[in-house]
């Protein structure tokens, strides 16, 4: 039997299942961006900004937030999307969607994340840039 399945079955049969609801897990001592931020899609209709951090832990729902604008000194626009942490993963991927950006336009942005009651994960990226198609 696959080791994962064996581990799961042992835990179930021994009564040591995880809580059914998304669990609250211990918060990471420090959250760091390990990959990105990057822009895997820079379309006119949909732009996706993605970055990876070590699993911040804490409340199960977090929000990735992008502050952006065409002036690197004025990132006045904000977009955010929720993700649900996977307590079984050592890292967490945040993705934020931006819609209907004008084409062939250069944007500057930073990223950060918070939990569902607004507490920051304590990491903000430096200013990055992308140009829409």
């Amino acid at each position, binding site marked *: 039997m696959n080791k*994962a*399945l064996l581990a799961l079955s*042992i835990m179930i049969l021994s009564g040591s299942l*995880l809580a059914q609801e*998304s669990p609250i897990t211990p918060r990471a001592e420090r959250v760091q961006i390990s990959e990105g931020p990057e822009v895997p*899609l820079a379309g006119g209709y949909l732009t996706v900004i993605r970055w990876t951090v070590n699993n911040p832990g804490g409340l199960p729902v977090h929000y990735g937030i992008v502050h952006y604008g065409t002036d690197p000194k004025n990132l006045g626009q904000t977009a955010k999307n929720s993700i649900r942490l996977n307590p079984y993963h050592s890292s967490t991927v945040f993705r934020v969607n931006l819609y209907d950006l004008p084409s062939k336009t250069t944007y500057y942005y930073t990223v950060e994340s918070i939990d569902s009651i607004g507490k920051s994960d304590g990491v903000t990226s430096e200013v990055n840039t992308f140009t829409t198609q």
Partner: protein
Amino acid sequence: MRSKSVLRLFIASLIVLGALFISGGFLLWSSTPQIFNQLIYNPYPPGILPPNLNSEIARVLREIDVVEARAIARWHSLPPPTRLPMRPGPNPPVLQGSGTESIETLGELMLFDKNMSPGRNQACTSCHMPYAGWSGPIPSVNATIIAYPGTVHFRAGKRTAQRHTYAPFFPVLQFNQEQGLFFGGNFWDSRATGYRLRNPDAEQAQGPPVDTQEMGFPDTACVAFRLQQSVYRPLFELLWGKDSLNINFPANTEVICATPGGAAVFGGNPEPIKLKPEERTEAQSAYDHWGSSIDAYEQSVQVSNFTSKFDAALKGNYKMTADEMAGFNLFNGKGNCNSCHVDGRGTTLQPGQKDTSTTATANPPLFTCFGSANEGLPLNPRNAFYYQTTPDSFGFIGNPFGFGYRDLGMGTFLRSGFGSAPNPNQNWIQFAPMVDGQFQVATVRNVAMTPPQCPTTEAGTGKPYFQKEFFHNGYIKSLKQLVHFYNTRDTSFAYPVTSGHCPPGTIERVTCWPMKEVPNNLDTTTGMLGLSDTEENQIVAFLETLTDGFTAPYPNSDTFTGQCATCDPATDPNCSPSRQGNGELIPTPPLPPCAPAICGVSPTPSPAIQ
């Protein structure tokens, strides 16, 4: 033309019998299904309704009769109750030994009782049959209008029929202050909160009997009235008290309960049956017992029985195939499915990895976190709800907003909005903008359940298949599309179009995903997963292991008498799991702005929804 002849016949009947039966302004209405069914409400453009709808509705009713007969036999086979000495009075006895099976059998009898509708033509199971995991039993409806016609043909609701399996395990709806999230409740929008009966599943069972587009009684007391007439009344009274249905209904109750809810003649009155206060209380108690009894059945091993391949594998009694195991690992890994569809999995500890396991529970995994999420489904123009903009024969209009309706899900419920239910907790109203577009994270269990003779949900696999519908609006037509949607929703396949308008050179549901119906609060846990085509197929293979009926036959799964679907990929370009259902795509008409009655109710959506 035919319906005009029937109407003339009714008017003639009315004249002949009017002196005896007209009372209080109510029309005489024969509750025979044949006549009821013939006053057709059809506001739909050509091609919206499936051509076999009437025959399929009739088929399901015959299947319901089979199960009801089995339930009656089961009732009669129950051992006589062992009555224990109790204090005098009408208190129900404690049913030592047979109590559990008695209440479960009662719930089954109720669930399959088509007399629980004005036309005596619709049971709960008209939309929830066991062989489909207790979801929609008519493939052509699943492929087209997605919502099932109610007692009035063809009023219909706006969402897919959810699976009953494991619904009883959802907790009472609560707002978790610590997490800032809602958990629990039943229905797609969590409006069956469980706040009264402390059981959302029981309160869910109370909804359809008085839903204008579903079973459609005009008064909750009609449930007690029809229970009074039911063949299983003795079982109800055995469990809930020998006087529990002794209500003196007025003479016009039959006429009232044979008239569908929402009829203009009622003038908006939700309690047209005139009962004394104490009798209204008794009728309400019977209505509550209805919900509790059905919940007992849905919790039982007749419905929720953990008999899947996955359950067997956990016990070491089934060896997953390579693809199933790969899919399981993707479900927990790259697919990230178990972040919401919690599988109770313990961490497979890697060197240096921190164990973040939390408190154990006693039940096998339910594959849900009991929460809600907005997965960004496109608006489905096939949905029957959009077309019910004109009055039916009873003067009822299902959806005056037409395509100006947007399904905000839980957001509408928290606002006590149109098409939902009253929100019983004023403290929750403020959270409506936070949950706009969110729908229940359904259990994944039995998502792939089909009748045994149609062993798959997927077209073009060489096996006969059973067409199902997925998500709240039935836009997705196969498990392959479901996984592909999660995988690619937010990639270059995303286009600023509505359904039916994908650009040339793209294929909707394959290389083109239309815009989200409600962009607010989009969850991006998924949407750009980077899964390969093979990996998508492997996740589908894993989902199929979650179908009950592997370690023991699934009760009443043998009752499907319809036709499985087949297709030929050589002649049908849509004969594949990826393109399944694309033959039924229609262009979404130009969408009006969201109606103020939906999107203009305080606290309004933020950002505003157009």
